[in-house]
């Protein structure tokens, strides 16, 4: 892992540009997908962008019986192989942070894959609350 996705919630203004960037960068069949990142308000006008934490010991990978979830060693992201996914909802239920999501539009499970090492949300975040930086 050479890069790290950094979330700085105190900079987040709740503008939801990241949601748009995520949904449109993962669009398929001319339909935007479900966003993998959400600014959620924990108090009035105080937002935390909630997204997959790419845990070191991930519960989603453990819960998947079909090896559909695997870590991409290059980006450090846990990626979902849609070809192997049978939508058993094991990862959705097991993730302790609720960051494996159900996309009703495309009828599939989605989770943050750090856009194969170039996260669209970090590109578009106007307040730089989301950053993708090279580790020293």
């Amino acid at each position, binding site marked *: 892992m050479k890069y790290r996705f950094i979330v700085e919630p105190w900079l987040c203004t709740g503008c939801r540009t990241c949601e748009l960037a995520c949904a449109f960068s993962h669009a398929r069949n001319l339909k935007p997908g479900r966003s993998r990142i959400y600014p959620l308000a924990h108090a009035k006008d105080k937002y*935390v962008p909630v997204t997959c934490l790419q845990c070191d010991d991930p519960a989603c990978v453990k819960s998947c019986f079909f090896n559909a979830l695997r870590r991409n060693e290059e980006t450090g992201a846990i990626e979902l192989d849609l*070809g192997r996914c049978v939508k058993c909802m094991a990862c959705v*239920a097991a993730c302790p942070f*609720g*960051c494996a999501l159900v996309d009703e539009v495309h009828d599939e499970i989605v989770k943050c894959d750090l856009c194969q090492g170039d996260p669209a949300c970090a590109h578009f975040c106007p307040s730089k609350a989301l950053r993708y930086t090279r580790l020293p």
Partner: protein
Amino acid sequence: MVTIHINGKAVQAEDGEMLLTTIRRQGIDIPALCHHDAVEPCGSCRLCMVEITKKEWNGWSRHVTSCLYPVEAELIIATHTPYLQELRQTIIELYMARSPHSEVIQKMAGEYGITQTRFQTVPDGDNCIMCYACTRICAELGCFAISAAERGHDKVISGPLREAPVDCVGCLSCAQICPTHFIEWTDDDTGRTIWERRFELLACKKCGKKTITKDFAEYQSRKRNLPMSYFDICDDCKRMELSKTMGRIVVSAEEATQ
């Protein structure tokens, strides 16, 4: 890496992978019903047949199910010869006779320009095409709850002794993987019914949203050492909790710096 020739084009393929994977990676559409990446291939639907030959075979060729044939160096593959198209049409016609009410089969028949089957239709034919995708995925899960029962015309997929499967955990993998959507289940306020068995659904302790079955959560917890507390609340509430926890940390950090 080995080099194979698909429809006259030289293509690199990984060692040990099956022909179907290589062919589909090239964007060539080959129909298949029983194939799914998550399970072992079994070649029961016969729709993915391709023609293979080699230079040293002196013009002889074979027709093989591409999902079961591992790549070999210098294979020459044809995927859409007139003979193969006719073969696929015949197979689809057989499926139409067996499962006359299946929308998936009918759509496939439409794509191949078939309007009616030449074979005698099974009047009360169900949508099960005996592809064993459900039993294979159940085996992959480690449950082995369902299997084929009886023989010949009476063969059905069911639990042992045609009773409700005791080892089933109600995960719905079989219903989701079924290519013809034959396996039925119902979710209601009190639980889930599949394979004539009733399952208790876990409800979120905060908002009451139904998640997975209690049996499946216990199965995951037992097999993969996940604490049962992970299944207490639903994913929406978990994200809200994460936001609140992070927010609390941010607020306390801000207070500390002031």
